[in-house]
């Protein structure tokens, strides 16, 4: 295997730029603070081991991460989309925490130490950004830590005794949860779907977690009852889960399905 095959310096340089901006997006302040801390360590740290870890090691990692050849070789092992995680090798927070602690350690009285810690905490709490500020944190009533409606649907299908082989079609948002609860429930699609697009005028398919362009997902969300039921018949799917608040052209009951359970605005239909 030739690791250097296809190496293009300019292309790799662009990739390095993209990785840098992806990781340090809108966080110039922390980058400046981190740089100042590294400088502080170089200028004041007398312990060689600590200076090596938080100084020379950091610089070496940066040289590695900004090296086009390294990025090119690593692409054999890591997806480019995950490669920004190479920046995890830089001990950013330990360096900053070390410098803050060092400053506080230098204070003579304990009361001053406490006061200084409280001030730094307050400044960060006022000007910083919580890791939950982008959302995502929610309260649920189950220990699976999955949406309650998904747990309800998975249990309803799993407990139903009419069909031994459970095959279901569920809204796309739910598709990544059901098999985490009962993996024996087979789904028409899961999170990773085939996406169809045009590349150079030719149809192209690829695995993606973006359902846009997937005909089945689109028809399902549009509420095209006939299309959904025809698909279910062709694939021997015996359960349909549908959001009660979504538009549906015709009720599934008209096409040989019956409602067996309903909660959290979702209904579970079973083939009669």
């Amino acid at each position: 295997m030739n690791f250097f095959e296809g190496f293009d310096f300019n292309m790799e340089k662009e990739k390095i730029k993209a990785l840098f901006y992806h990781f340090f997006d809108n966080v110039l302040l922390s980058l400046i603070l981190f740089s100042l801390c590294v400088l502080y360590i170089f200028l004041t740290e007398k312990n060689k081991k600590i200076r090596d870890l938080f100084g020379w090691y950091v610089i070496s990692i940066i040289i590695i991460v900004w090296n086009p050849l390294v990025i090119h070789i690593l692409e054999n092992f890591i997806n480019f989309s995950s490669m920004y995680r190479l920046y995890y090798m830089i001990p950013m927070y330990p360096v900053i925490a070390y410098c803050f602690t060092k400053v506080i350690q230098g204070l003579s009285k304990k009361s001053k130490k406490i006061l200084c810690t409280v001030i730094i905490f307050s400044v960060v709490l006022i000007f910083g950004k919580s890791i939950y500020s982008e959302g995502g944190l929610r309260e649920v009533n189950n220990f699976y830590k999955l949406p309650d409606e998904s747990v309800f649907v998975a249990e309803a299908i799993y407990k139903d005794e009419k069909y031994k082989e459970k095959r279901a079609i569920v809204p796309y948002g739910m598709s990544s949860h059901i098999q985490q609860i009962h993996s024996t429930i087979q789904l028409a699609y899961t999170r990773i779907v085939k996406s169809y697009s045009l590349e150079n005028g030719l149809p192209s398919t690829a695995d993606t977690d973006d359902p846009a362009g997937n005909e089945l997902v689109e028809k399902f969300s549009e509420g095209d009852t006939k299309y959904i039921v025809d698909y279910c018949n062709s694939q021997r799917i015996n359960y349909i889960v549908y959001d009660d608040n979504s538009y549906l052209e015709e009720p599934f009951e008209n096409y040989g399905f019956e409602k067996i359970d309903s909660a959290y605005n979702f209904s579970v239909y079973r083939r009669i």
Partner: protein
Amino acid sequence: MIILQGFQAIVWLMIIPYLLGKFITSKDEEKNKMLYTWVIGTCIQMGIFFVLAIPMILIRFKFQTLRNLYFTIIVILCMISIWLNRGKIIKISKFNLKSISIFQIVAIILTFLQVFIIFKYSNINNDDSSFVVLSNQMIDYGEMYYYEEGSPLNARRALAPISAYYSTLSQYLFVHVTIFTHTVFPIVLVILANVIYYYLGKTLFKEDKDSPYIFMLFMILANYYFFRIKGAGSYFFRFTWFGRSIVAGMLLPLLWKISLDCMNKEKNKIKDWLSLLFVVLASCLCSEMSVAIISIPIVILTIINSIRDKKLSYLLKSVGVLIPCLIIAICYLIIR
């Protein structure tokens, strides 16, 4: 049932790792290293699983065989540990209420707050759905990392078999694997991470009593409430159960701490190098990215410290420690 599950959780996530950790820390003169023993023991527990799982996955053993064999090995190792450490399993110095500092109290409160958040709230991310589903499928179908009969091996997942590890532990705990992955294990991981930050602080500020706790507090603050949200620690506290987040938020800081111990002229003890080896193995279990993000720091730290201390032995020992990464890299290139 809940009492049994709780008991099993304490045994498999605390007592067994502690007993395994004793293999490395038993000769330590330093007292009050119980928590560090637990941390190292968890890495040993993960490392042994990795060494066992990789060949068994490649030879297409059934999941149940792996689960039973791992159980047997761990039980035997624990019995050996108990026998070797009889009479000195627990070493605690006298507890003095006056010696507790305000920083220590705040650090403990913040740790409990983190545990509460993890227990109470859910941070749903569909990114992890595939590897939790894989864990679930292993239990239901017994196949490991082969989607269907005759299909090729999913190399990226199989060479970092964290899903199999979750399935195995959840079976011992009699807990659904998703509950184990999303609720039970993150609680342990968050406490372990804080313990690691404390010991990293302790290594950096040797003589000072308060500074390790202050360092730990700043680490928690930085991870939860800093100027960016894509950092390694922040990622760890949001998605604690992801293999790559365990590497980023827990195992890398542990690697930095151990590197200060083992690449050290005065110490340079074989037990520290063994600890480093188990950190590497645990990382390989957690994420295929470890091939890069664990081996590169070790190589760089080895070179820097070898030059500083003029010790060639660091290089030789590091090569030994990095063998798992090398094997996984070769396997990955062959299989993919």
